[in-house]
């Protein structure tokens, strides 16, 4: 329980009568907005979880961008020994195909960091559009769309995705499209409920009374005010997307076998755990976990700051 929801901008005292000229004041306002954003960032930087999450994500981003510089070996190269245990020359060992696990884990960041954010963004975009329409228009459209969304949510996600990918082929774009489609209804529900609260406010009535179109009210008036939950939704969805993409490639719906994909690596090698070759499964799995956790740490911090 907090007694005052105090923001530095509120309770602005009445200004001196000789207010600054117009140009200055616009700059001042822009500076004010910048200050507000700066404040949000400052609050985020005070959260160790956020910093930790960002650091882990940064490590993977660097790995993805500079794979060739960082990876000690070519991730596709066959080494001399199969299933070599971790050593100085191969810190994560080699897998059953004799490839260096460290290099493959580093290279594997590239695919997932390309696919997951794009898929999440497209899914959130679709969800925002659908949710705005449902929440603002209400009526028959909302009723029908809500039932469809609920029906969609009741289906097993992975099954649906596998079905789509086996039908459409497993290019990166298909994976992106499938994950985005899976996310759209979930996001739509969140956005819908935010819009429902927002449309009851008088500024929406006011806009309608001056003859604004529904599109204008939805996208110009309402959308900026629900950006908080949307940003939170986006970060949460990126975390889910990483996991979904890895799951799909584990199930064989990802890029074809030689490519250094984390999910595919786990699926290729997990049979050899029983033989004691744990490293070829453990390190890609740990990579997936670290990225999912990192993104969720960031999402959680953003949610707390946005809602405070």
């Amino acid at each position, binding site marked *: *329980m*907090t*007694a*005052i929801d*105090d*923001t530095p*901008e*509120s*309770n*602005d*005292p*009445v*200004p001196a*009568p000789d*207010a*600054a*000229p*117009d140009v200055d*004041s*616009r700059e*001042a*306002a822009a500076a*004010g907005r910048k200050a507000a954003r700066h404040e949000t960032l400052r609050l985020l930087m005070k959260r160790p979880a956020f910093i930790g999450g960002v650091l882990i994500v940064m490590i993977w981003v660097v790995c993805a961008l500079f794979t060739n510089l960082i990876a000690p070996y070519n991730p596709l190269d066959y080494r001399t020994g199969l299933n070599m245990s971790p050593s100085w020359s191969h810190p994560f060992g080699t897998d059953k195909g004799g490839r260096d696990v460290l290099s493959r884990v580093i290279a594997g960041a590239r695919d997932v960091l390309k696919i997951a954010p794009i898929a999440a963004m497209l899914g959130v975009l679709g969800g925002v559009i659908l949710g705005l329409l449902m929440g603002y228009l209400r009526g028959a459209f909302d009723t029908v769309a809500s039932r469809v969304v609920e029906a969609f949510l009741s289906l097993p996600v992975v099954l649906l995705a596998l079905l789509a990918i086996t039908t459409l082929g497993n290019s990166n774009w298909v994976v992106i499209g499938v994950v985005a489609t899976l996310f759209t209804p979930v996001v739509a529900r969140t956005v819908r409920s935010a819009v429902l609260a927002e449309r009851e*406010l*008088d*500024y929406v*009535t*006011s*806009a*309608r*009374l*001056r*003859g*604004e179109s529904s599109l204008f009210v939805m996208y110009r*008036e309402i959308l*900026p*005010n629900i*950006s908080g939950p949307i940003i939170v939704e986006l970060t949460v969805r990126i975390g889910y997307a990483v996991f979904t993409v890895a799951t799909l490639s584990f199930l064989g719906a990802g890029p074809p076998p030689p490519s250094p994909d984390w999910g595919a690596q786990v699926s290729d090698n997990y049979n050899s755990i029983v033989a004691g070759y744990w490293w070829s499964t453990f390190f890609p799995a740990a990579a997936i976990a670290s990225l999912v956790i990192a993104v969720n740490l960031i999402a959680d911090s953003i949610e707390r700051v946005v809602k405070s």
Partner: protein
Amino acid sequence: MSDVLAEPGSLDERGDPATAALAVDGLELAYEVRGIPRAVLRGVSFQVRPGEAFGLVGESGCGKSTTAYAALRYLPENAVVQAGRVLAQGDDILQMSKSALRKFRIEQASMVYQDPVQALNPTSRIGHQVAECFTVLGESKSEAQASALAALRRVKIAAPESVMDRYPHQLSGGMLQRVVIAMALASDPQLLVLDEPTTGLDATVEAEVLDLVRDLREETGAAILLIAHNLGVIRSMCDRVGVMYAGRIIEEGSAQDVFDNPQHPYTMGLLNAIPRQGLRKTDRALFTIPGNLPGIGSDLPTCVYVDRCPIADDLCRTEVPPKVSVGTDRWTRCHHVERLSEIVEPEAVVTEYEIASDNVIELDGVSKTFRQRGHEVPALVSVDLGFHEGETLGLVGESGSGKSTLAKTLLGVHAPDEGGSVNLRGRPMQGKAGDRIQESIRAISMVFQNPDSALNRSWTVRRILRRTVTKLTSIRGEEADERVESLAEAMRLSQRHLDMRPKQLSGGLKQRVAIARAFAGDPDVVVCDEPTSALDVSVQAAILNLLANLQNDERTSYLFITHDIGVVRYLADRIAVMYLGRIMEIGATDVMFSEVNHPYTEALLSAVPSVDGEAENRIPLTGEIPSPANPPSGCVFHTRCHRAIAGLCEVTEPEMVELSPGHRIKCHLTVEQLSEPIEISPADVLAEIADLPD
């Protein structure tokens, strides 16, 4: 004649603090926000003697609610008490152990909150919740049931047995507040803290609840600490009053003394800002207090009021004003008590408010029926209403009387039923705003009750105004920018405010932006839906002045919806009284307040607690407003009318009759019958349960 009392922070001399029902001594309290303590109370000291009613008044943010909560140590986690004591019967409750505090709250003190809906558990029956208060005191289940029933009887609820079995959502706000009061009195507390107990209630219900508290106080002898921003409520309820400002009490004395003869510039400002004693806009502008309350946690000058005080001088800036005695048990914190007479009232207005004779807008037989689960709910029933150019038409009535529906139909939020029409300068308009031609949309605009909700919080003020200008007029480009700037200037907003977002503005400034937007299209009619009810009195005064001036300059007509009789009397040229979707009375303001009224108006006017302390002869409105889905037969008001004639009023619906030119009422009674004084029997003040919807 004035004597300097003991140093600030010390207790007042009205007896030993150890025997006081509540003694707050030099209390300093801060809320920690993001690790930084922000001072809220800065040395509050007062005493409530046993059996006494003490009122705290002040504007929002002055710390009065925090003081109330501190009195029972109901403080949020981030509250830090930095200094001071809170004594109840001599025990410092700030030092009490958890169990002692619990015992204190159970046995000695109770609190009644602002919103009874939130104070009660929605999933539990009333009887069970009231009985809990008695089981906590050690009674057995059956004893507690009997005590609960008695407690409900005590707060004058009719049919308490049936109330016991109901859930909170089945009762009205007034009933719920009675239930909360019944629970608060369960332990016969020595101290009852009421935090804005009637703020969310209609004036008529407010009057009933206040009557009840007054009666119970005589019965139980409990000391009362009453927090209210409504000075009339404090005046009618309290023996003593403390005026709070920026976390300090700046004046204290008997309620009558303080309100009739204020001795601090702030108290004077507050009292002068209220439209009262029959003041009209044609008499003079309202008194306003320039500037704002110092923000929570900001550094305070020596005298907290110095920046807004009209008589401040160097002494006020360098020395903390001591407590200056200005009578028996009466003090103020001002260096210049002898110079208070220098504060002058605003000068009389010379301009005449001209009103044209032809109607700008006419509602012609407008009805509006909503459909709810197959039932027809008539919210408006053949309303005929017209207003002239430059006229303010006040619209009053209880919640649920159809005021807002009338406004929304006029604005085109929803279309009226077939057969009625809204005419703009004689020509009928389309029902829905979306179907109306540009000219009709431009002609009517609205100022909403709550500026926080009415302004898009992610837009700058400039964008809000500019969009409205370009949408409603043919002004474009640089001319539109100029129009926005001149609008802002007319509202006394500075250029700096134009680039701010609503969150960065105070409540009064936000409402100015909302008014600027309403005027952006140069409208003929502005609908004002309680535009000042969310604002403090000093801000309200400035907004009312602004509206009056704008009307004079722009020749705009207002439809002014309000609960506040003082405000409507000040601003309106004519007043219409609504009940169950019908206009029961309409007439010129001075006529309404001098001649006989419709019995409903009579009851409404008598319900207002006055800060002037005029003699009260309150006519209670028994029961709740009937459901519009099932209106009473004959005259819709006969079920609650104190003058109803059996065999006539419940059979025939009366016609509108003209009492004098322009003054019409919907009533069977003659002027002679209406002017007979009436007797109120005690049975009339029972709160009855409304008919439950099926």
